[in-house]
């Protein structure tokens, strides 16, 4: 199995939200949308299509998953476990040939570290940029995958 781990695109700052709106409701900025569309074009050029997309229920991840639609050949699934620290249950939800996960930091780095090193705490200093993508291959279990590429958004936009 291959897995794409995607950090959500650039969202508005918390202070820009209407009073009473929770942090979870932060949408993407216009610039964030524009840039992430180019990231998606880069994924298409690499033919990195996915057969399932799991995304967090928070708005910035939902909107990022929506922009990702051109590379999604199967269904999208709202997965609340992506709005929290990763664990066995989230790993068990990885099915298909190449699913994508769209979520938040620090949890996306922790998921990457968990799948590659078997230890979520090894994620320190990964520097997973907004709109960045990690590409993994192997068995969906802690320490069962190897990292094929860790692609900053700027690189994908230039492809």
């Amino acid at each position, binding site marked *: 199995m291959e897995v794409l781990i995607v950090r959500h695109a650039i969202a508005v700052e918390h202070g820009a939200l209407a009073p009473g709106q*929770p942090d*979870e*409701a932060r*949408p993407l900025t216009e610039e964030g949308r524009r840039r992430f569309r180019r990231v998606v074009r880069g994924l298409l050029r690499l033919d990195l299509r996915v057969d399932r*997309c799991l*995304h*967090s*229920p*928070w*708005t910035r991840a*939902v909107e990022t*998953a*929506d922009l990702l*639609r051109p590379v999604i050949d199967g*269904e*999208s*699934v*709202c*997965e*609340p*476990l992506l709005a929290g620290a990763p664990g066995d249950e989230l790993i068990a939800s990885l099915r298909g040939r190449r699913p994508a996960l769209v979520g938040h930091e620090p949890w996306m780095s922790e998921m990457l570290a968990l799948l590659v090193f078997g230890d979520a705490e090894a994620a320190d200093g990964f520097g997973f940029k907004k709109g960045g993508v990690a590409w993994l291959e192997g068995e969906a279990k802690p320490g069962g995958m190897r990292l094929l590429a860790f692609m900053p958004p700027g690189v994908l936009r230039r492809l």
Partner: protein
Amino acid sequence: MIPVEPWLQHLRTHIPVAERGEDPEGVHQIRVATRRLDVWLELRGMRVLRDDLAWVRRRSGLVRDLDVLLLREIPPTFSTWLQQRRHSARTALVRALGERRLAGLLEALSLLAPVDEEQARGAIRALLGRIRRLDEALEQTPDEIEALHRVRRALRRLRYAREWLGGKTRIFAELQETFGAVGDLSVALRLAQACPSKRPLAPYRKTLLAELETARVAALARWREVKRRLLRGR
């Protein structure tokens, strides 16, 4: 601005009703709410979350179809088979209603900003265009029931879209009743064809086919009467 809240709340309210299973209206209202929320997402120009809504709708839809059919006068062997299917469909629905995917969907919908009315009007124009194209296809093959179903489903979406914008939809509701008979009879026929008791059900299937043909002709005639008025572009 068009907030999601009224129909999201409607969905939330009917989930426990459907789980308890005492009132079939709970399941019916889940299907109605998920259809309307799906249209709200289309007005917003979003594709994700619609798969999650479709997942809930498939599970509630099967139970609802069986509930409706079991209210009809049907042969006993068919009724027994339908009740068994309803039992397993209901088990699958109750399981789905307890899954974290549904909790995530409700949370995600509750966080989304209201739809801009101008954007919604643009989506309605696109829907009108889709119905015009489906109508052209229907007129090329007027005897094909699938072509009629496609128009029926698209019209329902247009009705819901207009209702999100506070528009009047009396004629749509009336038309949906006429089309609804075609939908119900098609479901009944599909299930009767799937039922393992082939020979005892042959006369019933024949009756259903005749009723479906009558309903199809009536729906097509009514559609031809009103379509010009309904498809006026705005």
